[in-house]
């Protein structure tokens, strides 16, 4: 069975993330495989890819965060893997995870205040890409 997690997407508002996650966890989704974010310019989209090892099932949660309110409940209490994955998203996008056990930058230096994977991040030495 070749399952594609992106074929089963659930778009949820950010308020119901924790509730949805709890329900999915109780339904047997034991593996939070990946958390990532995409900067869509007007909002930041969070993507949670979940798997169930026993049931061979997968699901993707997507939620939009407004740029002026980058905060969402942490899932680290349900899936331990969320701990580092959320820290990475916080580091690279600046999304704050509420109730996270240890929300610190993970890859970049602690005293840095920008979030490099945001589209508005720029440095003078960043390469200009040619038009194709």
């Amino acid at each position, binding site marked *: *069975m*070749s*399952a*594609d*997690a*992106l074929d089963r997407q659930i778009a949820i508002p950010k308020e119901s993330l924790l509730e949805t996650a709890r329900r999915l966890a109780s339904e047997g989704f*034991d*593996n*939070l*495989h*990946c958390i*990532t974010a*995409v*900067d869509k310019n007007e909002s930041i989209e969070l*993507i949670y*890819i979940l798997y169930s*090892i026993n049931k*061979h099932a997968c699901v*993707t949660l997507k939620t939009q965060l407004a740029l002026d309110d980058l905060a969402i409940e942490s899932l680290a209490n349900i*899936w*331990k*893997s969320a*701990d*580092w*994955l959320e820290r*990475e998203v916080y580091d*690279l996008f600046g999304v704050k995870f509420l109730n996270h056990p240890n929300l610190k*930058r*993970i*890859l*970049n*230096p602690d005293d840095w205040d920008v979030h*490099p*994977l945001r589209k508005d*991040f720029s440095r003078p030495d*960043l*390469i200009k*890409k040619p038009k*194709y």
Partner: protein
Amino acid sequence: MTWSSVETIKENIHTEEFWVNMGPQHPSTHGVLYLEVKLSGETVVDLITHIGYLHRGIEKIAENRTYTQFIPFTDRLDYIAAMGNNLGYVLAVEKLMKMEVSDRAKYIRVIIAELQRVASHLVGITTFAQDLGAFATPLFYGFREREKIVELFDDICGNRLTYNYMRIGGLQFDLPKGADEKIKNIIKYMRPKIDDLESLFSSNAIFTARTKGVGALSKEKAVNYSVTGPNLRASGVKWDLRRDEPYLCYDKFDFDIPTGVNGDSWDRYKVRIEEMRQSLRIVEQAIGGLPEGDPTIKVGRIIKPEAGESYMRTEAPRGELGFYIVSDGSAYPYRMKIRSPSFSNLAVLSELAKGIKVADVVCVLGSLDIVMGDIDR
């Protein structure tokens, strides 16, 4: 002083827990990993993992490179198993573009990926033994065996470490003349050598005493931490993407999925040894049924996939490697997320380390088989 006052002596002696920094420059951290270890005597009370010393911002670089230009960067993720990264990336782009590659390309990719797995596990197991204090001797043997595979890759694509061989839509070159003979020889050569390595470790009482029961990771925890690859299977979860979500043509081959029982360092080592044998089985079947055709690329240099997204995960030697690509229809990826296996595998270390001896931290770390380039990206 009488014996009854032992308790009072204990009260009067002032002992304290202290922090020891292991890394970023330390002989056994496999690169630039920094562990803050809180010790009470020899026992670990707390362990904090700091990563990011090798962070090169590859995900950001991806947004400024065309799809083809990004392939060499995947080599620099898990540099011990560069072919696995190449493969994961090109499969993700091919999925995004809904592209099919020729059968021959699929077979060659399987052969290459499995040989890479053998090479990577050889490094993983022998550096693990090195961490246990076996002064480099197994390391030399492991590298001697690996050399055969590296030489083959050199013949095929001209590089020894960072291959840049897979292409979107196929491969850079077809196999050179005589390569299938060489691959058959490698299989013949490697089988007894793997047995040798196993007997070198498994029949060594000190190795057994150091690894059995050390750093046991339960099934539930392994899944909860999203530990993948040999480490997950060592915990007793029979989960392998090559069987459970077959990509390429893995469903055509017959192979077993070795699993452990206790999830300790010993099981992790054992699973890797067994996986090498299974990989050789796959290579043998693939080289036997290698179809004719042209495996080289059919697409141009500038690729503009339709706007959309794709997530592809493959079973890389160290675990599940996922590429999440968002395309906006231009020649550059809009966003590329690399879900690297070592990242999640390392996260479990601070959980496993609590309460064990400081020497066992090194043992557990070695058995998790991490690569910093893969973690920090």
